């Protein structure tokens, strides 16, 4: 490596002496294009600048003007927090870190010429491309659902849908039924649907005590923090929440808000269907073959796409390593692995042989009480993927107000680590 360093230094000197200046820059700055400004992409853009001391140019393409956080958005749906609390902007990335933030949509990617095309018509050349496209929905898997997100909100991407679902809850009559459908795993944020049921029930207990919250789960069981959710539900929402496993949703009737399940039909006053999910469609533009037609397979040492060189993918869009959740926290951690790998690869250095990522995920069981699940994952060279560290991680002993305070501190810090 020392040799390489001297070699590069010598190269720089030679270039300067050779008088290449008229051609432009003596040494062109490497350019990394990041697509998607969620927890993954925004963190990657920031750390690429931070860890290169600004020597790498970074362009972040994000179609939304603002960052709206999915974590904490269930509090907004339950009326315990405002949209402004979960809404942040990209000024920090631009002003404090020198990221070029472009609010546009990617329409084409050519891995052969390393070019990204935008809806505006602009073209960008990259040395490395990082996609953090999040998820897209597969509403067509449920008959009658496509195009009905105003009548049957998902609220599984925070924003206008979050406000809409809260309004529908607020307008529901006392004695009404709020039904949530959970798709088969894997989906974004495994404990999220159960947290939502809890916070909707908390709202009902305060404002509509005769209402019911019906949890229709396509899975055979609660997917995360099962014991803790069941304990909280039996203690707090005994007469409000009803949990029904193995309830695969086949069709919906938007006009009557009826859910047609395999063995049953449910008519709801508010019908919240979380649709089946796949990698965000920007991932289709690189021509990688998706695993199960849904997820992008990456080399977890670098997050580089297995079959598309110079392109890295992180976050919910990826085929997760064993027991690695699709979470904002994990996307932020993967972003740092990818940023380090990209900087090493640009410098012709080998990637970090032993990256580590960890996950912390807080869930509220009521507006004043939360619990966590945590895990640490080390890169295993033999298996060439991340594996959970034995004996580490775990769950809260019990949901508590202290952890609700910790959850707020987590949110403030991860938003800042991602954006500021």
């Amino acid at each position, binding site marked *: *490596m020392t040799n*390489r*360093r001297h070699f*590069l*230094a010598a*190269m720089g000197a*030679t*270039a300067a002496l*050779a008088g*290449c200046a008229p*051609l432009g820059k003596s*040494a*062109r*700055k*490497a350019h990394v294009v990041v697509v998607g400004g969620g927890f993954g992409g925004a963190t990657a853009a*920031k*750390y690429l600048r*931070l*860890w*290169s*001391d600004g*020597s790498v140019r970074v362009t972040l393409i994000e179609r939304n003007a603002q960052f709206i956080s999915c974590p904490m958005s269930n509090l907004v749906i339950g009326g315990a927090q405002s949209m402004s609390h979960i809404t942040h902007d990209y000024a920090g990335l631009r002003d404090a870190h020198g990221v070029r933030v472009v609010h546009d949509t990617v329409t084409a990617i050519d891995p052969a010429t390393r070019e990204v095309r935008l809806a505006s018509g602009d073209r960008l050349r990259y*040395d490395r491309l990082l996609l953090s496209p999040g998820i897209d929905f597969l509403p067509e898997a449920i008959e009658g659902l496509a195009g009905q997100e105003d009548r049957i909100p998902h609220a599984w991407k925070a924003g206008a849908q979050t406000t809409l679902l809260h309004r529908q809850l607020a307008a529901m009559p006392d004695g009404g039924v709020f039904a949530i459908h959970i798709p088969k795993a894997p989906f974004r944020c495994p404990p999220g649907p159960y947290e939502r049921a809890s916070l909707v029930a908390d709202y009902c207990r305060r404002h509509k005590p005769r209402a019911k919250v019906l949890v229709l789960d396509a899975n055979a069981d609660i997917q995360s923090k099962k014991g803790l959710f069941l304990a909280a539900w039996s203690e707090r929402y005994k007469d409000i929440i009803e949990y029904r496993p193995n309830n695969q949703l086949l069709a919906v009737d938007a006009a009557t808000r009826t859910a047609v399940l395999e063995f049953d039909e449910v008519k709801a006053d508010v019908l919240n269907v979380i649709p089946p999910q796949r990698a965000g469609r920007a991932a289709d533009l690189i021509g990688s073959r998706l695993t199960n037609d849904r997820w992008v397979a990456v080399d977890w040492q670098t997050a580089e796409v297995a079959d598309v060189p110079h392109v890295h993918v992180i976050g919910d869009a990826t085929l997760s390593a064993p027991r690695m959740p699709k979470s904002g*926290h994990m996307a*932020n*951690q993967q972003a*740092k692995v990818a940023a*380090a790998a990209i*900087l*090493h690869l*640009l*410098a*012709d250095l080998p990637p*970090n042989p032993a*990256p*580590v*990522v*960890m996950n*912390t995920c807080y869930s509220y069981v009521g507006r004043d009480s939360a619990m*966590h699940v*945590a*895990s*640490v994952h*080390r890169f295993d060279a033999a298996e060439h993927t991340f594996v959970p*560290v034995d*004996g*580490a*991680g*775990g769950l809260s002993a019990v949901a508590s107000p*202290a*952890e609700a305070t*910790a959850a*707020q*501190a*987590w949110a*403030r*810090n*991860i938003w800042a*680590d991602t954006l*500021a």
Partner: protein
Amino acid sequence: MKRIAPLTLVCLWALAPAAHASNALDAGRLLAATCANCHGTDGRSVGGTESLAGVPGDKLLRKLAAFTSGEKPATIMHQIAKGYTPEQLALIAAYFAAQRPDAGVAR
């Protein structure tokens, strides 16, 4: 690269992406970045958690050991600290100790 083939070899080199520092990123820095979600970028918390920037390394290591042994009660840190080897914890502690508590990154 093909389109600039007519240039001289020397200038071709000059046009290659700048390899900036061309040093490997510090292992402690990368490990410490896994703490940043809760403890702030480079250990400078924006509130509600402990700032780790500038904390002497031996002090932080003692605290982490107390979490791991159960001597110091915690809601979550005892579970997380166990995920790192002693060598990794030492690298993390050394990195945070070298950071300024205020803005700006110590080098």
